[in-house]
């Protein structure tokens, strides 16, 4: 006898992913995010591992949140800022290497280098604001909440970064 599904019964909420499942699905994206936040592979791996270790400890809670990504990205940003505060030095930023770029790639590589160089010159908090704005496409208010500062401060960070990029590109055009 076939049993018809009970149409009146609400569908059970899907089980939250296990920690392993979630990391398998999101790990690469987190590493890429951490890479642009920190500026180096080594610092990115440190920040991601730090954040994931904390998330793992409380996965019962984190896994049930509507957006574990946001939670962990916030931890990554702050793990990097905290590490920087403790050491008061930037992680060495990897240079953007493009050996013998093809002519049609030269412009793109040059522009990308300028973006990377501008980011490298920013303190970690400002850099995080820029990455969250232009890589994660977050609203200013979301970034302010994530960085525990005012929206005006975030706007100021982003505005300064745009100014720095403008200056660098103008300089390169000369």
């Amino acid at each position, binding site marked *: 006898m076939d049993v018809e599904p009970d149409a009146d019964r609400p569908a059970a909420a899907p089980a939250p992913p296990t920690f*392993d499942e979630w*990391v398998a699905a999101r790990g690469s994206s987190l*590493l890429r995010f951490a*890479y642009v936040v920190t500026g180096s*592979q080594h610092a*990115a791996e440190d920040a991601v591992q730090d954040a994931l*270790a*904390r998330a793992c400890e409380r996965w019962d809670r984190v896994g049930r949140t509507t957006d574990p990504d946001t939670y962990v990205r916030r931890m990554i940003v702050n793990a990097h800022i905290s590490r920087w505060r403790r050491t008061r030095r930037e992680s060495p930023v990897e240079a953007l290497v493009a050996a013998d770029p093809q002519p049609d790639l030269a412009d793109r590589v040059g522009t990308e280098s300028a*973006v990377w160089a501008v980011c490298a010159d920013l303190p970690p908090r400002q850099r995080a604001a820029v990455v969250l704005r232009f890589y994660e496409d977050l609203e200013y208010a979301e970034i302010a909440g994530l960085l525990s500062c005012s929206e005006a401060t975030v706007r100021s960070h982003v505005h300064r970064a745009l100014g720095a990029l403008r200056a660098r*590109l103008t300089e390169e055009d000369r």
Partner: protein
Amino acid sequence: MTDDADLERTFREGLRHAAGRAEVGLPLAARAKAGARTRRRRRWAVVGAVAAVVTVAGVTVVVRGGNSPERSDDHTATEPTVAPVTEWRAESWHNLTVDVPADWGWGTAPLTMSFDDTPVLCGGPGADLGVDGARRRAEGDAPWVGRPIMLSDACLAAPFQAPVAPYVWLGAAVEPGTEELGDGYTQETVEAFGTTLTVASQDPGLRRHVLESARATTDCEARLPSRPAVAGMPIEGLDPVHSAQLCAYQKGEDGFDLVYAATLDEATAQALYAGDGLGSQSATNLCAGKFDEYLRVRFSGKDAMGSAELTADWVVDPGCQQVEIGPGFVLPLKAACLAALTRNGLPVVLRSFIGMLG
């Protein structure tokens, strides 16, 4: 390229391409689990140490049944040992000033890292520094007034063990309310003058006294828009100097926040003002602002050429061990002078003394 929209697009494309260079496909879950195990072991090591202190510090008495004085096997309990407080001192944090027992030391209070809302205690528990100037990090059972400052990079996450000593926390990351902590300790937290005030003790009278003593900070400005500046240095000077107020500021989000205040005794104030412990050569200002922390020392005394009460402000840069005594006139501080200035809680409040690693 000057258009903001173009620049934003350039940022987006540049970051997207850069992100593509990250090496992915790493065993992140396995590493994270190993990291979590390490963190748990470290935390349990701290908890174990605290539990050991509780066992040693508790005073065990026999609680007898009400109607049968002969019985002695009902159960045991820990009885608080509370001595009356006879002397109090003021402690300030931002715009909050409270009275705490004068013999309590200084230490840390729960704070939150910006990546996590869980309060952590980075240092202590217990006074890290006694009023006698002795470091007490290993003891853990000395009452203390704590500020949300990292005194160690080994942090203990909430919930914390039952305390083994009473404490007052200024500006701690604690929600307002009352909590029974065990061993007879009650913790009360209120919002006061723009921050939080927490007191935990087995003595309800002490808790009440501390909470009722909360007031706005008046001896020092709670916040300065910029670093403190020298002021009011009369050419003829002050004579005699009869007191000096020390206000310690640390750079915050919107200016410099008061993190500590103390009054220097008359002898120290006079010795300092007389130049004892100041170098004679001008210091270079290359180091200035290394830690974004400054002490403003406001001397009060009589006008040397008259009878008016005057003040003069010096600004000490503790990270660089130098003092500005007039506009642009910077002198090095000798160790003895710095020691006189820091015969109080400052060594566990300012990063200049704590160091970046706690």
